[in-house]
């Protein structure tokens, strides 16, 4: 059987594109394909990943300019048709700016750029991105961001809760979701959310940086496994 291709979008200023390419390429039967921001052709990929970094230098607001790049018009259409789109870190910011996900990310509560391991708790394991996890599983996955403070109006938070759209929360090593285990000030300790349709996931932590033993954690692999199982039956 021919390899199934997964697109990794490259914006000027993306800096986790090759890490993501490497992680995707480590699965049998899956081939990463880099998609340039100025292109319109999605080249027949079965899923798209928007990687981390500083697209367009984070000018104006993180993700705001990337959202209007030529490739994003195709990605938005692709997502609206129901194909899977995953946004990691800056990719999450781009998805929010695109309106594919609701809410916004502002500067971290304590003003710092945070680059560290975090503990995540899985909140919804019935998505195409999390089917290989257990409910309330604790994962070690790193974050690296200055603007990861998730905000949305109260009615949006209620709607996310009601429709089980919160997928990952920051917790401590014992699984307690509290202010102390909240690294950046995100409302409800939100680390990742999915759209109502269930095909667009955005998260601030970097699963591609927790996909190999030498990186200190393998906990991000199941996210890719879940997605690839969905698109290719791998």
């Amino acid at each position: 059987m021919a390899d199934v291709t997964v697109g990794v979008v490259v914006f000027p200023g993306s800096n986790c594109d090759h890490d993501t390419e490497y992680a995707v390429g480590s699965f049998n039967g899956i081939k990463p394909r880099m998609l340039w921001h100025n292109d319109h052709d999605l080249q027949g990929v079965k899923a798209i990943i928007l990687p981390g970094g500083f697209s367009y230098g984070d000018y104006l607001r993180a993700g705001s300019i990337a959202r209007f790049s030529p490739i994003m018009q195709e990605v938005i259409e692709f997502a609206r048709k129901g194909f899977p789109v995953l946004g990691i870190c800056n990719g999450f910011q781009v998805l929010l700016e695109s309106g594919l996900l609701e809410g916004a990310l502002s500067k971290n509560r304590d003003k710092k750029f945070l680059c560290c391991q975090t503990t995540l708790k899985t909140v919804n394991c019935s998505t195409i991105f999390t089917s290989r996890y257990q409910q309330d599983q604790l994962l070690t996955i790193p974050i690296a961001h200055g603007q990861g403070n998730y905000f949305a109006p109260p009615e949006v938070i209620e709607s996310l809760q009601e429709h089980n759209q919160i997928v990952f929360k920051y917790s401590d090593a014992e699984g307690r979701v509290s202010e102390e285990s909240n690294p950046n000030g995100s409302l409800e300790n939100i680390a990742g959310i999915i759209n109502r349709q269930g095909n667009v996931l955005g998260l601030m932590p970097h699963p591609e940086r927790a996909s190999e033993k030498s990186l200190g954690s393998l906990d991000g692999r199941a996210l890719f496994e879940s997605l690839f199982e969905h698109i290719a039956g791998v």
Partner: protein
Amino acid sequence: MPYTAKIKVTLRQSILDVQGKAVEHALKNLGYHTVESARIGKYIEVTINEEELQEAERICNEISQKLLSNPVMENYSFELEHVN
């Protein structure tokens, strides 16, 4: 005759402005004890080649909502001036 749009984008009051807080603390450290708060926003100048004021206003509103501000967490305001 073109217009210059002077557009201000500010964080909504309900959003914590960490940059503003840092500046506020620095000002207090400098001895300005009557400084109560500081908030940081963005100032953007755009030249719009339109004859009609109404059309320039429409464009200003559209670009502010579409790209220059994020309505989830920011407000915007603008002034239009004739360029001579």
